């Protein structure tokens, strides 16, 4: 089940998109999401979908792999659609007992579903083409101005990248602890909510202890390697804008313009 979650994963490939500066990808994704909410009509969605399609082609990430990411939000998606479909008031087009579907409802449900799908596809495409480290570097750089407001930007970025490093290790550990407790007769599959919640204690306690032990070890190892915060640190992979990044920015501006224009149709 855990393997189905593709959101947030990195898909290694050699494409223009993979080589783009993470700051461009981060800002681009943010702009894309904002634009999705500015869209007013079918034309706008068509433009957004086509653009995303083109970028997916450029990314060399298989389409099927990206779509698999939608599996995890399918319930959310159905819920949103149902909510909008049945609970929007307006001109009824279908009525049966207490169920009432309105014209406005259909259009709202449609646009919400399309928005959600494009949003998920767009943002997962960013994580597919950007390594976690680049992502945190990009965030650190984009949030840089906040340092003046005493926001610990470097520390937040460091925490994020360490968390990304340890997620797979802790998942594996959870699996191991579960098996070990099962071997001692623990039962995670039957019983009511309270019984099941109680059954989690023998997993969660060792997991927390292990996470704290690892954190202590890691802190010591980092100190031993002369880590003392962001001050005076140099970068092995400093972020630099290249020509393709400029082109990407032009493309992003074009996309904003198209979206704004589409609102007039």
């Amino acid at each position, binding site marked *: 089940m855990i393997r189905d979650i593709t959101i947030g994963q990195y898909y290694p490939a050699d494409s223009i998109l993979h080589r783009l500066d993470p700051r461009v990808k981060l800002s681009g994704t943010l702009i894309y999401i904002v634009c999705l909410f500015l869209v007013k009509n079918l034309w706008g969605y068509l433009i957004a979908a086509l653009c995303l399609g083109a970028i997916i082609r450029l990314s060399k990430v298989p389409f099927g792999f990206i779509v698999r990411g939608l599996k995890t939000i399918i319930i959310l998606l159905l819920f949103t659609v149902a909510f909008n479909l049945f609970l929007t008031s307006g001109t009824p087009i279908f009525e049966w007992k207490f169920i009432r579907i309105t014209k406005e409802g259909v259009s709202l449900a449609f646009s919400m579903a399309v928005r959600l799908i494009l949003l998920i596809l767009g943002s997962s495409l960013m994580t597919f083409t950007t*390594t*976690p480290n680049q992502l945190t570097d990009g965030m650190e750089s984009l949030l840089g101005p906040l340092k003046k407001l005493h926001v610990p930007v470097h520390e937040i970025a460091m925490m994020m990248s360490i968390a990304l490093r340890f997620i797979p290790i802790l998942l594996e550990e959870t699996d191991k602890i579960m098996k070990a407790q099962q071997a001692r007769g623990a039962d995670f599959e039957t019983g009511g909510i309270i019984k099941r919640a109680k059954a989690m204690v023998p997993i969660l306690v060792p997991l927390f202890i292990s996470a704290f032990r690892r954190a202590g*070890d890691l802190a*010591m190892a980092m100190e*031993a390697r*002369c880590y003392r915060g962001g001050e005076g*640190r*140099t970068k*092995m992979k400093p972020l630099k804008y290249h020509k393709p990044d400029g082109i990407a920015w032009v493309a992003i501006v074009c996309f904003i313009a198209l979206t704004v224009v589409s609102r007039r149709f």
Partner: protein
Amino acid sequence: MKMIEAKKLIFEYIRRDEEGNVESIDKALDEISLDIEKGDFVAILGHNGSGKSTLAKQINAILMPTEGTLYVNGMDTKEEDKLWDIRQSAGMVFQNPDNQIIATVVEEDVGFGPENLGVPTEEIWKRVEKSLRAVGMYEYRDHSPNKLSGGQKQRVAIAGIMAMKPQCIVLDEPTAMLDPDGRKEVIRTIRELNKEEKVTVLLITHYMEEVIHADKVIVMDDGKVVMQGTPREIFSRVEELKRYRMDVPQITELAYELKQKGMPLPDGILTIEEFTEAMKRLEQ
């Protein structure tokens, strides 16, 4: 030149109860005095709780002596403004390979130390390449550490220390969590670094076969240095080692037992070749 010099080093762990009253005082290090020369390969043996890990942490200035002094590369570890110089000149590798790799890509992890030292970008790349080649992990530079074996992870951790250009590496049971293959590859790497790069090595372990090539062996028990000498000198004293609950290589033990039964064999046999030679002489 001395790399490490300890003078009557004492370290106490003080345990306090909830109100802050002293509950107990454990002497983890009890008047340790020792010298380690530059370029040496020194092994420290002792079972858990003998104080060997505490000693390692003192050398890296993670812990400070309660009494006595410790000089690392001529610097007193108590001098706070020398802290980063000390940590740079005596790098440390820990037991659990998973808990000391910070980055999600091998090369970025090796670059972590130099980044902290403020080394210019170009120089970082040079150092990363050189260190990864030195430990034989260059072709894995863009891999995720999670996909590597234990021995490979430990070699990455060693490269991470090498990239800081230390004069000495302290390894705190680097092989305890590895399988025999992983252990061999890590020990081979350490020996090569000692020979080729002339780094002083301080290897803490409880596997005997890892220390037979050391220049000097130190045995610790209960916070004290109880034995010191070349591997041959140490392994000639099988009885004593057993008293400290230490292992002896099987071949050393075999030769020792045969000698006990009256066969005229020399003391301190460390390898199968030496054993066979001695037996052949006996036959003639």
